[in-house]
């Protein structure tokens, strides 16, 4: 029989960005919070100091900060009539291994989504007519929350994380240097944008000449020291270039560790159970609520953590799998489009161009995880789609991220030998002359893109693996092809001598090739309980004391990295819990 721990007011499942932001809000409001994380404790100076980080083999090749497929993976197929196969080696799932989750090893691109991204269905119908929104394949739905409603929480997240950037739109006024297409912000970023490095200079010149508006990507790699609203101090980025898949050694990359734990961990009403893996949420007999969670502890024992409120704040694959395992709500059925858990999987539709120059000196090793320039002229609905065969778009960006020598050895112009003396000659030259245009494209959900439990494969605890059924929507394929052509035009304008376009969506989707690690959906939010698993406050429609928080809630993915939106939603939900729910427990909106 399972051991039982003392009851908590709130149990948080997964102490990454979502869990940490929520725990901070809820403990500050006086609630007793217990977090459970499947990873071990990890911190800056004792785990990933500067002397340990700059090690490509260990962190990029062997991915030692990532949760290994052995412990966490999923199966995948493109179509309903296929038998899904497990992802056996590291693929698109780049989950965190230790406490802090993926927020510890992320690159740091800290976007807000565009106002359009929250209302894709409504706005598409308004601008282009219903046939564009209902093409027989897409399954579009609004989020039930608008950009304007989320703005204060984006602002709060950016203050906690100290984000570096230049505003493009403050209260409706377009600002030079920023992204003119962004939703209105109430104020400037906490810290100024990062430096403009060589590849960005070339990109900025070229795109300006083409009439676009390049801007520096908002970054959680801080340009200068910052003290956040919790009183926690952060350092300034040293452009070491070891961010994505690395811990940050000098407190300059925002993470739960760098931004929240110093305040949170010292609160007497908070604790975290490490190396405990939650396998299910326990339902109450009344059928209206849940009683807590059950996890497997380090010693392999089942333990019950009772709580008045349960917040699932794990990565989307785990949020979805726990929901399916717990049988909280109806699983999605792709044949009838009924059921809610597992629906609206989306990804990131990636195309772009590799570029090589002849006599540049890029110094690619000088960089930061989120450092780059972008144009949003082809993102979201920022351009007229009337005569195009798709909706959505992509942020077209170039990176000054890193110059990792093992990985870069593969980035040589087409036709260059991959080995031998000619390889050495080419690499010695093109290490300093390579750049990328990366189109980070939106991803629209489809009727048959969904998650359920795999009938054949199980994890180390005997729990079924999650099964992903997904392929790119034709809409997204068309979008990726269109933006790829735009990237090629930019590469030509930049003066590249060799250009190799790429489009991941030209082939079927696969979990093995890492186009992106932005997996989305499974427990979508919305105003309609027939098409969403959680309401606009991320509260389960079927158990009012259960909140499911993270990118699992996005009904579709935008042409941006998801973390900023994950953070904003988490803070908003935590506020709703302690400002409204606790006083009067029950559904926060009528179904």
């Amino acid at each position, binding site marked *: 029989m399972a051991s039982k721990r003392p009851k908590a007011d709130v149990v948080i499942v997964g102490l990454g960005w979502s869990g940490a932001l929520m725990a901070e809000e809820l403990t500050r409001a006086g609630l007793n919070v217990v977090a459970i994380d499947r990873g071990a404790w990890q911190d800056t100076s004792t785990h990933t100091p500067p002397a340990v980080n700059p090690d490509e083999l260990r962190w990029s090749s062997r991915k030692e900060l990532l949760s290994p497929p052995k412990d966490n993976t999923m199966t995948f197929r493109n179509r309903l009539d296929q038998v899904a196969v497990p992802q056996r080696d590291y693929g698109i799932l780049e989950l965190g291994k230790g406490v802090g989750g993926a927020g510890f090893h992320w690159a740091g691109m800290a976007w807000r989504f565009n106002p359009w991204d929250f209302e894709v269905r409504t706005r598409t119908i308004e601008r282009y007519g219903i046939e564009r929104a209902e093409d027989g394949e897409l399954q579009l739905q609004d989020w039930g929350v608008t950009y304007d409603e989320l703005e204060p929480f984006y602002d709060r997240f950016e203050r906690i994380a100290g984000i570096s950037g230049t505003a493009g739109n403050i209260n409706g006024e377009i600002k030079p240097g920023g992204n003119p297409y962004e939703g209105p912000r109430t104020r400037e970023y906490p810290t100024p944008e990062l430096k403009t490095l060589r590849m960005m200079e070339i990109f900025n010149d070229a795109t300006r000449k083409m009439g676009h508006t390049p801007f520096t990507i908002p970054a959680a790699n801080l340009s200068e*020291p910052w003290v956040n609203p919790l009183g926690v*101090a952060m350092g*300034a980025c*040293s452009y070491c270039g070891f961010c994505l898949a690395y811990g940050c*050694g000098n407190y300059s990359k925002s993470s739960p560790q760098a931004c929240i734990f110093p305040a949170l961990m010292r609160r007497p009403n908070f604790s975290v159970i490490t190396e405990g893996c939650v396998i299910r949420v326990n339902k109450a007999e009344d059928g209206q609520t849940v009683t807590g969670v059950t996890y497997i502890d380090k010693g392999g024992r089942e333990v019950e953590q009772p709580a008045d409120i349960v917040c699932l704040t794990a990565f989307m694959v785990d949020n979805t799998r726990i929901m399916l395992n717990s049988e909280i709500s109806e699983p999605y059925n792709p044949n009838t489009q009924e059921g809610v858990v597992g629906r609206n999987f989306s990804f990131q539709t990636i195309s772009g161009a590799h570029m090589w120059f002849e006599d540049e000196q890029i110094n690619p090793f000088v960089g930061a995880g989120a450092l780059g320039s972008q144009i949003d002229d082809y993102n979201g609905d920022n351009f007229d789609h009337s005569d195009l065969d798709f909706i959505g778009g992509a942020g077209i960006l170039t990176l000054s991220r890193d110059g990792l020598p093992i990985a870069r050895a593969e980035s040589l112009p087409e036709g260059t030998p991959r080995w031998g003396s000619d390889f050495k000659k080419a690499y010695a030259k093109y290490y300093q002359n390579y750049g990328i245009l990366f189109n980070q494209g939106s991803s629209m959900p489809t009727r048959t893109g969904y998650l359920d439990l795999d009938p054949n494969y199980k994890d180390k605890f005997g729990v079924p693996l999650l099964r992903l059924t997904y392929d790119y929507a034709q809409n997204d394929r068309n979008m990726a092809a269109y933006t790829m052509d735009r990237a090629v035009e930019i590469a030509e304008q930049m003066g590249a001598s060799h250009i190799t376009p790429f489009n991941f969506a030209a082939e079927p989707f696969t979990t093995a090739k890492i186009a992106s690690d932005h997996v989305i959906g499974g427990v979508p939010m919305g105003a309609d309980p027939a098409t969403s698993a959680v309401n606009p406050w991320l509260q389960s429609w079927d158990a009012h004391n259960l909140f499911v928080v993270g990118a699992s809630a996005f009904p579709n993915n935008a042409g941006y990295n998801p973390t900023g939106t994950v953070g904003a939603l988490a803070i908003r939900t935590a506020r709703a819990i302690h400002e409204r729910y606790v006083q009067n427990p029950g559904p926060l909106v009528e179904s």
Partner: protein
Amino acid sequence: MSNRKRTAIALGVGAAVVVAGAFVWAWPTFDISRSDVADDETRLADFTSQDEDAIARGEYVMRLGDCMACHEENFGGGYTVSTPFGGIVASNISPDIDSGIGNMTERDFFNALRHGRGSKGLLYPAMPYTEYTKLTDRDMHDLWAYMSTIEPVDNAIDEIADLGFPYNIRLAMAGWNVLFFDNEGFDEHPDQDEQWNRGRYIVNGPGHCATCHTSRNFLGGPKDGEYLSGGGLDIWFAPDITSNPHTGIGSTSTQELVEYLKTGANSTSFATGPMAEAIEHSTQYFTDDDLEAVASYLKATAPSSNVRHEPMTLNNEGPKSGALAYEVNCSACHGVAGEGMANIVPAFEGNNALLADDPTNLIHVMLMGGRAAHTQARPTGAGMPSFAWKMNDEEIATVLDHVRNSWGNGAAPVSVERVAELRSQLAARDKLATPQDEAHTD
């Protein structure tokens, strides 16, 4: 592990044995008549003060005296102070009758705190009665009122179980007291202003600063003429806090000193090790007036005799230079020119705490890492990583010489032997062997 309590090593328990044989009756040392003002009827366990003002003042006196540092947050004791002669365990000072001080009267309490006479015999000077003796009657009464409000903790402690013969003879402390215990109350200097007097009272009385910051002779007594000039604590070094402008606080503004004691850091320095604990448990709770009094008093002390060193000549070129080691290992946090990072990492430029002749603190944190003080005002408590696995003794000495002699700094060379000694003493790991080393020894 808590570092602060190791400071008691400096108080040289061994001295006791040396002087026990030469015991002489020295009246002032053992005169406890000034504590006759205390009540000797009511036991602590039998009353709870109702005087809210006195209780609040008493709690503040407890913060000034940093009682929790050793007696723990519930006052149940149990913290072991390690000394070369064995561990001394902090006693249970909660009002528990059997295991705490519930049987003590106020008079007994005064005897213990101000005169080093406990219920089991003479106290060891791990307990700073040598400084608490300055506590005023009023502070003592208030502290007593506060102690009456503490929850009893049932935790029986044998304070000296770990001490072998002859160190476990409490009476031997009488000899030590004759030599080093100045059993006198606080006397105001009428020619100095109120703030100075208040500062002196806190520094020399409840704050017991000299316990660490004054160096000790071989018997564990304070050295004459070295008041607050810096004291070695074995694995740490309590720096010069006299008005010496080079190694002390003479060039630090009162405001910066106040900020340091209140928040754990100022624009240049961050507390770590024992001082971080003192700030976390004690000085962050001081009133601003008291912090200013402490700072003004320290700034008015006579400067120590520590001298300023001319910068060493450094080799700034090549793969073995301290400059490259600094750029590779240190600058990401401490700044490309030693400027540090505001509010999170100390600067090296203009940081006197770096420049003491005794580089123990720097070696200590290089080998074992460290953590900045965390306070209400500055909750971050950022970490200094350990380098024992990456650098050998010589490399650590080289990089420390670099930071101690760059950007206008000047200090004595760091000895490789001292690094080796601390590596052994702290049980820090050795530098990892790599195939490169082996290739070169083939």
